[in-house]
């Protein structure tokens, strides 16, 4: 039986990996890339990590696995819920009852840890270590080595140096924890995800672009650190192992974060009661539409929400109005949206009824926020890098471009690697 190693590098654009490999920032990657095919992959719709990683590990799009973002309203209410492994309604590959033994480290959307054949340490958004680990006996050892699920992001408010020190340290500890398990446990499938790259890209993208910045080299240094991890994995991994590397989305510079709910209110689609703490619970029946991160628009349908008023015809009209509105909107002379997709056109899975009605595909440099704090149209944020739907990374050792679909998408990863349940059974 072939063993499989999946390496996740959160937020790594394919073009950037190629560039860093070629320029000497990531020399071991350069060697690795010679052994297979590197493709540019499409992220999930919307291009948010929770949805995209869920697609990678289940082979489903959001309407198949039920994760459309980090947040969602609890069904039949306006209460804001946060997605987790409990929200995930499709089985990740390590939950298949196929006798394979798994080591799953830091995969997003796997908290709280569910029992599996093997060992698991959840990735973000894990809310405590105790319930992020299976089997629970492994918790004490991880605590002892100072394992952290995520970097301490509050450090970025203090200094970039502290932040960088923190993400390096978290990566080292994570790899140490993984190596300990790898040495000790039998395995058939490994998935190990590095997330510091996403954090770095969000906060230091401006330094990457500005070669004169004192943090430009430090940005590159983190990727060199990732490359040394790749080296260590390569050195230890048996040659006959199937190896794939993937990211969940691409990245680009962020010029501004625009609050979509602010715009919806300004244009009469969103109506809120007066409240010191604006929230979805404060929406009045006059509300026709509201937004959630990133660029998800929901129509306030009467058959979906307690105070919703839109019937199908009114919803159709509102969808057309919103499409026209957002395609034409500019903020500070900058176009906000390139495309507006209709949920009914793109989602066909068993959880399509929970999907957003519209997806706004942000224009270059624009992040579309769904926050309900409507103080600012352009939100004051430290973030200067943002996700892209295009240009995520997929690499598979031993495969060629001909082995990949014409358009490689996150939900195709398992099938390309022949890890989908049916294919494995057939094999």
């Amino acid at each position, binding site marked *: 039986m072939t063993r499989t190693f999946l390496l996740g590098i959160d937020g790594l654009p394919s073009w950037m990996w190629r560039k860093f490999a070629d320029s000497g920032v990531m020399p071991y990657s350069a060697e690795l890339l010679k052994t297979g095919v590197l493709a540019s992959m499409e992220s999930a719709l919307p291009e948010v990590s929770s949805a995209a990683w869920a697609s990678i590990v289940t082979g489903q799009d959001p309407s198949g696995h039920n994760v459309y973002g980090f947040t969602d309203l609890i069904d039949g209410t306006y*209460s*804001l819920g946060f997605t987790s492994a409990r929200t995930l309604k499709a089985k990740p590959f390590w939950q298949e009852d196929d006798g394979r033994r798994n080591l799953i480290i830091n995969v997003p959307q796997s908290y709280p840890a569910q029992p599996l054949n093997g060992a698991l340490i959840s990735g973000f958004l894990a809310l405590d270590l105790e319930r992020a680990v299976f089997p629970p006996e492994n918790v004490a050892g991880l605590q002892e080595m100072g394992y952290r699920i995520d970097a301490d992001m509050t450090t970025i408010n203090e200094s970039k140096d502290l932040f960088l020190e923190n993400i390096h340290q978290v990566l080292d500890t994570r790899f140490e924890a993984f190596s300990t398990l790898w040495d000790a446990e039998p395995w058939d499938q490994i998935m190990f995800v590095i997330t510091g790259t996403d954090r770095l890209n969000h906060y230091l993208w401006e330094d990457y672009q500005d070669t004169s910045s004192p943090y430009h080299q430090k940005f590159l240094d983190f990727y060199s650190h990732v490359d040394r991890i790749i080296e260590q994995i390569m050195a230890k991994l048996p040659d006959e192992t199937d190896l794939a590397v993937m990211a969940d989305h691409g990245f680009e510079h962020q010029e501004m974060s625009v609050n979509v709910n602010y715009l919806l209110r300004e244009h009469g689609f969103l109506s809120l009661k007066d409240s010191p703490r604006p929230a979805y619970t404060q929406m009045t029946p006059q509300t026709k539409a509201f937004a959630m991160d990133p660029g998800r628009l929901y129509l306030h349908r009467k058959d979906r929400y307690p105070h919703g008023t839109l019937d199908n015809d009114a919803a159709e009209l509102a969808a057309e109005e919103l499409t026209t509105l957002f395609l034409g909107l500019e903020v500070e002379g900058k176009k906000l949206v390139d495309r507006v997709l209709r949920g009914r056109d793109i989602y066909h899975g068993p959880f399509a009824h929970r999907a957003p009605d519209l997806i706004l595909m942000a224009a270059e440099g624009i*992040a579309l926020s769904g926050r309900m704090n409507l103080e600012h149209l352009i939100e004051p944020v430290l973030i200067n890098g943002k996700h892209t739907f295009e240009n995520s990374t997929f690499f598979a050792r031993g495969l060629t471009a001909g082995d990949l679909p014409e358009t490689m998408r996150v939900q195709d990863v398992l099938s390309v690697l022949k890890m989908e349940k049916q294919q494995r059974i057939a094999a």
Partner: protein
Amino acid sequence: MPESNEQNAGCTCWSCPSVEFKGHVDFRACGQAAFSKAASGQLVVECKRRPDIGYFDPMSITYDTCPEWQKSQYGRLLKGMRVMILGMDGYLGWPLALKLASLGCHVFGIDNFVRRRLVAEKGSQSVLAISSMEERVRVANERLSGTIEFQEMDLLDRKKFFPYMKETRPESIIQFAEIPSAPYSMADVDKAAHTIENNVLGTLGLTFAMRDHAPEASLIKLGTMGEYGSPLTGRPLFEGLFPGDATLQYKGQEWSLGGELTPRDPVSFYHVSKVQGTFSVYEACKYWWLRSYDVMQGVIYGNSTPELDLDPALNTRFDIDEWWGTVINRFVAQTAIGEPMTIYGSGNQLRGYITLSDAIQCIVRLVGLPPEPGQYDVVNQLTDVFSVRHLAETVARIGKHEFNLDPMIQRLENPRVEAEDHPYEVIHEKLENNFGFKSESNLDDEIRNIFRAILEPAAKQRIEEQRKLLFPTTRWSGEKQEMKVLETIKPAA
């Protein structure tokens, strides 16, 4: 507007003790989580009662939309709410257990029976005979809809108490397990030390047990109006914390006092122990994000609640001696057996008072509207301010005209160190305004209730047996001579 008994309908899960804080999340950058309650970002919690709804924003669900918070006589309470009463065998603890059980709560009580022991050591006894705890619990569980469980345990026995806290997972904790007598604490050094040790260390240990095993539970800690003293300047007795517009002027400069603890000026070593408890709880809320209401209770009196009245086996204790009795209860007992009511000094001392049944209502309302994590707040729990002389005159009037008794009043040398003539302006607005409390009893009716109960032959006999113990002997000065009678008064008709 909520109904009058629905003050907590609009509360959110953020103050619900069934909700576990999980972290703060910044969704603008891929759901990065921070775990300090002081961090910024979107709050994320999990409901221990409804894990099926996953992780959520606690501000987005209110009690009136949550199926776990159900309407009760005194606002909403969690279905089968798990309430721990420390000191459940006491005068206040037992009727509270009955009330909560009648409202469907699951009550976990502990007591070390120190009160029964100390009363017996004094040679006195409860005027109304009280059953063993085993019998009380048995009858209560037969008659009431909720459940009461009891374990004999000393709060100071931390090896037992901490696991008990972990096992029972209370959602609300009522700290009544304190020795409640000012004169006992002033009688000698051993009794002072006993009071301080039991009260101070008991509450301190409790805060650590909560930190480790029940950090989401709300703590209702019984303090006393005596913590404040009675400032001769006439400064109002605010509810524990200065109001927002309070200022301090000194040498031409002005500072805001808003939100700071008001001064405490305890009037005995018992009250010192209560002040220390206040600080322990205040600090624990600050350090560990515990949440607490500190209840500055006026002098309590009475013997009746609807649940106590169900069965004599459910009686709560009713003490009248100089150490363990409270003033109104003692006055009625003295009158019942033809002894003069003993007032100290002028009898003009002003104090806050509340009936037993109103006090129970207040505590239930506090249980139903828990503070937010990290919040320490204070309520002044009283309904009226009376002078001691007024109380004696009221007891005399009712005793004479309604029970055909011959009341007398005796003014004694004051054994305490206290001002006898002083201003006394108590602010007590929160319970009514924020918690929906409405008094359901009054002084006259409660005095009548007491007379009816203790004029029964068996009760009267139990007063007779401790007749000598009604007269004060404990001087704050430590001197041993008998208190002199200053004046004997026959109240006007």
